[in-house]
C-alpha cells in the first residue's frame, strides 16, 4: 500500500511543471546580385578642323572640349586612354601623328596625364587614372575634357584628311 501512494504523489508534481515559455524559429536566405556598371560616353563624335593651309596650326579643338564621362561601380581602379586607328589620311597621303596632339583637363580626383605635349598615337596612351573613391563613382561618373591640336606640314598634299580617335576605358 505504501508503494502505491508514493507513485501517485510523483505523478502530480511532474504534471505541474509543463508550463515553460515556448519558442521556435525558421530561417530564409535572401540574395541579390547587383549588376556591374562600366560605361564610357562622349558628347560629340565629329570634330572638323575646317580648311587649313600647309603650315597652318589649329589648337583648342573643339573650343568647349570633348566631354568624356566614365562610370564604374566595380570597386576597382580604372584608366582612360586615347589613340587613333591611323594618322590623318587622304587616300595614300597622311599627316603624321607627330603633328597631332591632345590636351585638356579633368573634373575628377585622380591623375591627369596631359602635359600639353602629348601626341596622339595608334598605341593607346594614358589620359587619366581613377583616384580615391572613384572605383565606384556612381551615379554621376567622372568627367574629363579633351582638346586637340593639328599642324599641317608645309609640304602637305591637298585633300580631305580624316582620322578616327578612340577613347578606351579599362580596369
Amino acid at each position: 500500500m505504501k508503494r502505491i501512494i508514493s507513485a501517485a504523489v510523483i505523478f502530480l508534481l511532474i504534471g505541474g511543471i509543463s508550463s515553460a515559455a515556448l519558442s521556435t524559429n525558421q530561417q530564409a536566405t535572401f540574395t541579390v546580385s547587383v549588376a556591374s556598371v562600366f560605361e564610357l560616353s562622349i558628347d560629340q563624335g565629329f570634330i572638323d578642323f575646317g580648311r587649313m593651309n600647309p603650315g597652318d596650326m589649329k589648337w583648342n579643338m573643339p573650343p568647349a572640349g570633348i566631354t568624356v564621362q566614365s562610370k564604374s561601380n566595380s570597386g576597382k581602379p580604372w584608366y582612360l586612354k586615347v589613340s587613333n586607328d591611323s594618322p590623318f589620311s587622304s587616300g595614300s597621303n597622311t599627316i603624321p601623328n607627330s603633328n597631332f596632339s591632345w590636351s585638356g583637363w579633368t573634373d575628377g580626383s585622380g591623375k591627369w596625364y596631359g602635359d600639353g605635349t602629348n601626341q596622339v598615337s595608334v598605341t593607346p596612351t594614358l589620359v587619366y587614372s581613377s583616384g580615391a573613391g572613384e572605383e565606384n563613382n556612381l551615379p554621376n561618373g567622372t568627367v574629363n575634357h579633351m582638346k586637340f591640336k593639328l599642324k599641317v606640314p608645309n609640304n602637305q598634299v591637298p585633300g580631305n584628311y580624316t582620322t578616327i580617335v578612340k577613347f578606351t576605358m579599362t580596369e
Partner: protein
Amino acid sequence: MRLFSEQNRILSAVIIFFMLSGTGSALTMTLQGNSSLDFGTMAPGDNKQLTTNPSDSYAYCNKISVVSNVDTQWNAYIKADSLLTSGTLTIPADSFQWLSTYAGFSKTGNWYAHTNGIRYRTYTGFASGTNYLAYTSGTSDLDPAVNDNITDGTEVQFIYMLTIPTDQTAGLYTTRIVYTVTQ
C-alpha cells in the same frame, strides 16, 4: 505473499506509464514557400517587389503557419541577422523592406482574417538584428480568442521589397531572415 507483491509491481508500472505520456502545451511553426529567395540581378537604382504575382493584390512571397494547442497568446517576430552583405559591402537597412499583407486563422475548416494582429502593414526597413513583432494572436473581430488554433493553424503572409542605391558597388549580397514564434 508472492501474489500481493506482483500486484504491487503491476500497479507501479501503470502509474509510471501515465507520467510519461502526460500532455502539455505545443507550439509549432512551418515556413511555407521558398526558404531561399532571390531578387535576381538588379542594377543600381532598380526597385523590385518579391511576391508570387506583383499584379495580384492578394499575392505574397512566403508565409509562416503557426499551430498552438493552448489558449495562451503567442507572438510572431521577423528579423534580418545582418544587412544585405557582400564581403565588406552592405546595402542600407532602409533599402530592404518588408510588410505583412495578411493573417488568418482556422480551427477546423472555417478561415477568418485577423488583420488586427498584424503589426506592420506598410513597408518597414530591416534594421540589422532588430526583432520586429510581426503578429500577435488573440481576440479577433470575428471570433473569440484564437490563441489555440489546432488543427489548421494561423497563417501570416509576407512581401519584401528591395531598392538598390544608385551608387551601389556590384556584387552578390546575402542576408538571413529569421522568423520566430514565442508563447
